[in-house]
């Protein structure tokens, strides 16, 4: 008798709780009290801030240029904890398109990060093959192949991972002195190139503490000059347009080095 009524009460409480929680955004059975982390991507060109259609920069080949477009995909984020374990950002919320022309896109917020102390970050530049080939209904927002600001090759199904465009006197006049670097290719079937690159950053001596009431904001510097100045020196005069071709892997091998951890911002 006693048992039954306890259970009855319990049942009633559960029902009430569940119905109430159903209306809020948090599902009932999620891990307890997660926090958030923000990543701020600060695009620069060497020691200067990157400004579209304005400042002139110089690459290691001594070529001057301005930048008119700079976009890249960041995906498959994983956060490393102090104890060596990893928090893998859920697949469905792990794709971000950073666009220099859209300041809001440069801050990404990771929700539901388990409270804890973090020491590093790993991510992919680009969009993995599984998601690239996924049903179109699973590719919305930045992944929408029809509306993501030209970051998709519709003639050769796949995302453009990194797009840098600009103007330089050394680029061909026939091309209106513009240069284009559209780098992609996830290595599907027998395709020879795979330009997916993984970046791992350590927060140096910083231990980033995520708590329910503390959202640390990490500043990551993206140096566009590294696209030119890397293992293969990229010259605009010699390569005014690199898109889907074998040389593009050299550009990917350069830009894999363009990210560095700067600091935790006070908030």
């Amino acid at each position: 008798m006693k048992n039954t009524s306890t259970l009855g009460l319990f049942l009633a409480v559960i029902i009430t709780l569940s119905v109430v929680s159903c209306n809020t955004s948090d599902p009932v059975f999620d891990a307890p009290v997660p926090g958030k982390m923000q990543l701020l991507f600060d695009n620069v060109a060497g020691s200067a801030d990157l400004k579209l259609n304005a400042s002139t920069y110089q690459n290691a080949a001594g070529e001057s240029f301005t930048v008119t477009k700079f976009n890249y995909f960041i995906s498959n984020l994983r956060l490393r904890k102090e104890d060596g374990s990893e928090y893998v950002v859920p697949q469905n919320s792990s794709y971000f398109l950073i666009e220099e022309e859209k300041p809001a896109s440069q801050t990404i917020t990771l929700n539901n990060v388990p409270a804890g102390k973090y020491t590093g970050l790993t991510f992919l530049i680009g969009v993995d093959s599984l998601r690239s080939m996924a049903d179109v209904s699973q590719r919305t927002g930045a992944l929408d192949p029809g509306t993501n600001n030209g970051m998709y090759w519709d003639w050769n199904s796949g995302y453009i991972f990194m797009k840098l465009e600009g103007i330089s006197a050394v680029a061909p006049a026939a091309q209106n002195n513009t240069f284009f670097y559209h780098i992609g290719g996830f290595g599907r079937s027998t395709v020879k190139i795979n330009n997916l690159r993984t970046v791992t950053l350590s927060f140096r001596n910083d231990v980033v503490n995520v708590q329910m009431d503390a959202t640390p904001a990490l500043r990551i510097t993206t140096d566009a000059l590294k696209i030119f100045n890397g293992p293969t020196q990229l010259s605009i005069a010699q390569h005014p347009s690199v898109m889907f071709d074998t040389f593009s892997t050299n550009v990917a091998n350069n830009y894999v080095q363009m990210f560095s951890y700067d600091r935790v911002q006070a908030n």
Partner: protein
Amino acid sequence: MNTLRTISTKRIWLTVSVFLFGLAVACQSSKEPDPVVPPDPGPPGGGIEYKPTPVTLRKPANFPDVIYNISQNPLTVEGVALGKSLFYDAQLSRDSTVSCGFCHQQFAGFGHSDHALSHGIGGKFGSRNVPGLQNLAWEREFFWDGGVTSLDELPLTPIQNPVEMDLKFSEALSRVQKSPKYPAMFKSAFDSDTVTTARFLKAISQFLLTLVSADSRYDKYVRKEAGGDLTTDELAGLALFQQKCSTCHATDLFTDRSYRNNGLPVGAINDQGRYVITLNEADRLKFKVPSLRNVERTFPYMHDGRFTTLEQVVDHYRSGVKDSPTLDPALKVNGQPGIALTDIEKRQVIAFLKTLTDNTFINNRDFSAN
């Protein structure tokens, strides 16, 4: 007594967990609705009830297994009708002159009759011949070079191509959203009048998937149906075809979906075919083996439309095959490039190819612009 209580407690726990599970599911479906799988209609919420009528994809008995994942885009009468409307809508081109159906003409097996190269907006020419469209659910990759990996994504290319329809895709979506007729059609097809990329693309796929061509005289012959009589010449042609052509033009789809070099000399456009997509030297000058269904109607032939008649095509195989590092081995038996066929055999093979014309398909009102 004790046992009884245990059981009833267990049962209560079971009830609780079943209930919670049900609730979890219910909570999920109350989130953002999946744009594709039609959600359960549920109790009528004041508006019109969402009840699309399912359509079964026709799978002819003489065809291999379907490749398109139909569970991701179940066909409905409403979805197909929407897709057809979009297919024939010139609004999807910048100056509203070119629809999909402009280049893909039903009477030409959904190829562009008498156009060697694709001919789009403002009279601009593309660099490839318009292939006929049929049996797309059995296709793995699209275009002559297989560059497009999903039928659902295909419309992005012609709509945005500057020499085809030349319209930004986002602009196409917004035109459709603003048009008086479409929102209601999206509502009945997908239970939402919001035009999204996925819904737009999947509606066109639905229509394209219904374009099944399987009622030619040859099909009826194979399935032993009425009207399936082949003449002596046609039968001889079929035997020759099976012997000399079906390595590549395989199965009753008449393609093995592979990429091959059939020995065409490099044309003025210098199209490198599959190489452009894979960047593998071994893929230079390879093109997707085209189906030969309705081939009598889909002239001109080959990726650049260089041949206007089937006679020219067969002559190419007889005497025009050019040797090169990537020439398909099937076209170089005994070290000699080409396929040996006498004049009589040539006539017989062509007679057979014409048995692949599917008049039921070509005249099907369901596929026509109303």
